[in-house]
């Protein structure tokens, strides 16, 4: 106990001494945070904050010291996180390296994988992206067709991946490929690590109906990946991918909320619909706003319930599907309601006649329609709940 108190005192002192002032303000968007990698240039303060943290392993506090991590206990990591919050500090590094592929390699990777990748993730030198979806597969993820054919000590990849976030800004991709097309579709999939600079890899950004997006399509033509980059066994990649997906869904439930969403909606409602005795003047819209906020409260409380359960050792199960389903739908309702409040002012694409926040509301609404598609459609989540949670029979 006293040791932990010492750790807290030391950590706070260190944080106060080393954090640049600009890192003590909330970021305006996730773009302002550090995602690492060789392809993005970050401001000096951001890089400095990354470097001092990486040197202590504080970018990955619980990972082994030998691989560059902080080597902290869970209790110590909690203290670090609390102290970061107390000082309103930005995380020094975020991204798929820390949240997805790093933990996976620590669990499933070979020693060589760990030695090669973990330290570079900790230092933020390498940014990772995820190559799962394919244009033809959609919700039927396991039907993926990107082929990997063995040729000596390499796999030769042919095919394409879609909906890869930030593929154009990433150095490496963890990718699902088909190494066997003869049996059940889930049984011939392998999990590879691919350097994005390998000849034959081309990346094309995707334009959404809401405008520019982080999504890319990645084309693979005669791409040679060393066999040593295989994680787990050949043809056994599906199980690995599924474990990562469940992890992603839990994160996603929370992700759609923005700071101050409620206030923005109410402010817009007062401005565009007027006030009546201090209240939003239109009682029908007011009723819809209240319904939305009540449902949002229920989801927040449910997420909290899951977190509390996780703390006492309950493993997260299929409730991640609830979070994905409800989180995305609430975001859609919120964006839709914002349009209803703005009326014709929700129709702008750019330029004259619209305020910046009106233009943002419109694009947010358009973008929100993708929420119930990406990361597993709402229909897939309903299937998961029906089959795995409620144990309803197959057709």
């Amino acid at each position, binding site marked *: 106990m006293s040791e932990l108190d010492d750790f807290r005192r030391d950590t706070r002192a260190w944080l106060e001494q080393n954090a640049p002032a600009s890192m003590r303000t909330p970021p305006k968007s996730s773009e302002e945070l550090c995602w690492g990698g060789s392809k993005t240039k970050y401001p000096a303060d951001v890089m400095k904050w990354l470097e001092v943290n990486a040197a202590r392993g504080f970018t990955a506090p619980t990972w082994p010291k030998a691989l560059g991590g902080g080597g902290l206990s869970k209790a110590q990591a909690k203290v670090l996180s609390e102290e970061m919050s107390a000082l309103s500090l930005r995380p020094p590094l975020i991204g798929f390296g820390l949240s997805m592929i790093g933990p996976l390699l620590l669990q499933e990777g070979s020693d060589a994988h760990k030695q090669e990748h973990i330290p570079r993730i900790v230092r933020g030198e390498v940014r990772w992206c995820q190559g799962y979806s394919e244009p033809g597969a959609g919700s039927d993820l396991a039907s993926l067709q990107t082929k990997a054919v063995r040729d000596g000590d390499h796999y030769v990849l042919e095919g394409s991946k879609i909906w890869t976030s930030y593929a154009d800004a990433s150095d490496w991709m963890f990718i699902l490929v088909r190494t066997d097309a003869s049996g059940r579709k889930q049984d011939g999939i392998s999990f590879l690590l691919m350097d994005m600079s390998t000849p034959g890899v081309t990346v094309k950004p995707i334009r959404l109906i809401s405008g520019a997006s982080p999504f890319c399509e990645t084309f693979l033509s005669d791409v040679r990946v060393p066999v040593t980059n295989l994680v787990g066994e050949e043809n056994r990649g599906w199980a690995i991918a599924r474990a990562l997906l469940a992890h992603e869904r839990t994160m996603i439930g929370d992700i759609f909320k923005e700071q101050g969403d409620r206030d923005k909606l*109410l402010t817009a*409602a*007062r401005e565009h619909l007027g006030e009546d005795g*201090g*209240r*939003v003047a239109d*009682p029908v819209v*007011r*009723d819809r*706003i*209240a*319904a939305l*906020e*009540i*449902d949002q*409260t*229920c*989801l927040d*409380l*449910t997420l*909290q*319930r899951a977190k509390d359960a996780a703390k006492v050792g309950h493993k997260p199960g299929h*409730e991640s599907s*609830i979070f994905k*389903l*409800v989180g995305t739908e609430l975001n859609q309702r919120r964006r839709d309601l914002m349009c209803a409040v703005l009326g014709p002012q929700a129709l702008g694409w750019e330029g004259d006649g619209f305020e910046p926040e009106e233009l943002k509301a419109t694009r947010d609404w358009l973008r929100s329609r993708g929420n119930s598609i990406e990361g597993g459609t709402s*229909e897939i*989540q*309903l*299937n998961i*709940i*029906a*089959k795995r*949670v*409620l*144990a*309803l*029979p*197959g*057709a």
Partner: protein
Amino acid sequence: MAALGWLGLMIPEAHGGAGLGARYLMVVLEELGKALAPEPVLSSALVAALAIGAGDDDTQAREHLPAIATGERVYALAHAESGGRYGVGAVDTSADKAAGGWSLRGEKVHVEEGSIADWLLVSARAPDGISLFVVPASAKGVRVRPQARIDGRSAAIIELDGVIVERDARLGEPHKGQRLLERVLDAATIGLSAEMLGTMLGAFEMTLDYLKTREQFGVPIGSFQALQHRAARIFVETELARSAVMHAHGVLDGLDEGASAAVAASVAKAKCSDALMLIAHESVQMHGGIGMTTEHDVGMYLKRARVAEMTLGDATYHRDRYARLGGF
């Protein structure tokens, strides 16, 4: 139930209870709701225990709390009035000073447990504002007429024709009666939402079982994807409702500092009202013809759902209240 200690969960040990709090009572109310058991736990063990316990009057506490804990007496909250709909202020019943105490005059409707209650908690308008009075159902001038409602429970219309009660029949301090009544109504609303959670779970369980066993076109009807997706939606609603109900009981127990019981009550009641009606309607639909007959229990869930929805404010009322409490 008394033997199991359920009725004393909200009552301090000093007065014969277990003093465990609302989160424990929630478990009981949920199970009663699930079984559609018409037990007066909500009105006695939650509402009356809280109303009398909160008053800080030791004489009242000693008089009533042990009798609640043992189940010796049943209490009912007589608040709603004809035409008044919902809310704390819709009270025309009067409480005038009389020799040695108060004279109560008015008519209360939809008094749940009213036809079996031994004691009544009556809201009435005293010269210094609305207050709660604890009145024996056997007092002179109390007339109880049972109301036959669709859930078949013991509701009543209660007339108070110049009922004389003693001075200390008033709960709480002078001028603060309305605040106490608000707190009591919030607690009643929260407890009712726990019962509603149980009722939706009971109906859903029954329906899920039917989906798995009833065969049509050679397969269980639960294998039809359209029904699967609707069942999944229902499940999601029950989980969201559960979170709201659990949270509200935690707030009642003072766990969440700064949280408002009024807000928590309106969130829970609004959510549970909509969720329960959806689930009750869907349950009958999924049962098909048999669900429409009195031979099957699912219709009883539908009827109880409607009663619970319309008691202490429906979803629209609580959404409006939530907005008012939230300053919009």
